[in-house]
């Protein structure tokens, strides 16, 4: 069972928690590694996590922090994202680190085509460690101004506890299970 848990899982209309209660996780946040055990999780139904608001025609908004995805201490969140407005959204996790940044393009994680092309939204999944909040830049690609630019999030929040040193050593030597959770983008 533990080997079936990984980031960005796909499946028909499904979203699974990345870890179950009692399982070990290794939370990667920038250069930090946090060895933790999940002791509680709960689902978060779809909700509007941010409305960046009105944006003029052919304009990109300022980067906006998504404070509604902040987590408590010792917790991380697993969220899939989509928008209901005709915009493209660049995602940052945390606010200073781009997600989907390749050599020549910063791929918009989210736009209106997403649910048609990636129906379970597993490719717009992000993880948030504590209150290291993500951020979004909204690209209004239209020739008209828009009144709303809304982002919907859903997923799970996990509470974790620190692992003792012997368990950490067991994980490092491959004698104990661990699921890796990347809670940030990746900078070269």
């Amino acid at each position, binding site marked *: 069972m533990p080997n079936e848990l990984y980031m960005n899982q796909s499946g028909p*209309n499904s979203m699974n928690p990345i870890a179950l209660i009692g399982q070990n996780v290794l939370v990667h946040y920038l250069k930090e590694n946090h060895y933790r055990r999940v002791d509680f999780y709960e689902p978060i139904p*779809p*909700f*509007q996590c941010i*409305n960046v608001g009105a944006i003029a025609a052919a304009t990109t908004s300022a980067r906006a922090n998504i404070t509604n995805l902040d987590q408590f201490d010792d917790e991380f969140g697993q969220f899939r994202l*989509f928008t*209901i407005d005709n915009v493209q959204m660049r995602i940052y996790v945390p606010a200073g680190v781009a997600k989907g940044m390749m050599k020549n393009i910063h791929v918009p994680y989210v736009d*209106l085509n997403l*649910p*048609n092309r990636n*129906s*379970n939204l597993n490719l717009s999944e992000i993880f948030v460690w504590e209150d290291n909040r993500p951020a979004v830049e909204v690209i209004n690609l239209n020739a008209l101004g828009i*009144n*709303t630019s*809304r982002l*919907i999030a859903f997923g799970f929040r996990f509470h974790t506890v620190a692992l003792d040193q012997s368990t950490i050593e067991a994980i490092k030597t491959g004698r104990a299970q661990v699921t890796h959770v990347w809670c940030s983008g990746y900078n070269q």
Partner: protein
Amino acid sequence: MISTMLEGIRRAGAVVNLAVAGVANATAIYTRPTFAQMVGARTMKVCKLLVRNNLGGNCWLAVGTGAGAGFANLIPPLLILNNIDNPWQEFELPAVEAAATITAFPDALAVGGSLDVQIEVEEKG
């Protein structure tokens, strides 16, 4: 395929009687929810209109947002014929989306006449 995730919920406004003509008298036919404790912002896509002309004479019905100088059309004014029901279905209407309360007014009315207006929207958010 779950593109239905992008869909909102269908809701109908109340039947609103418009007995006074003119843009200054534009009246709410669908009020945008703005309750302080609700999460998220709602928008409304116009889906259906049913207009009953109560002997108001042939007239034009403007549907938009705001009133007076702040009125903005969502769709071109609709010709409302006298003394009959005037229905518009979704396939006849552009998929415009309003981010404010939807209002409407007739350009003119015969003395003693009025319009009964009901709108159906797809509320997104």
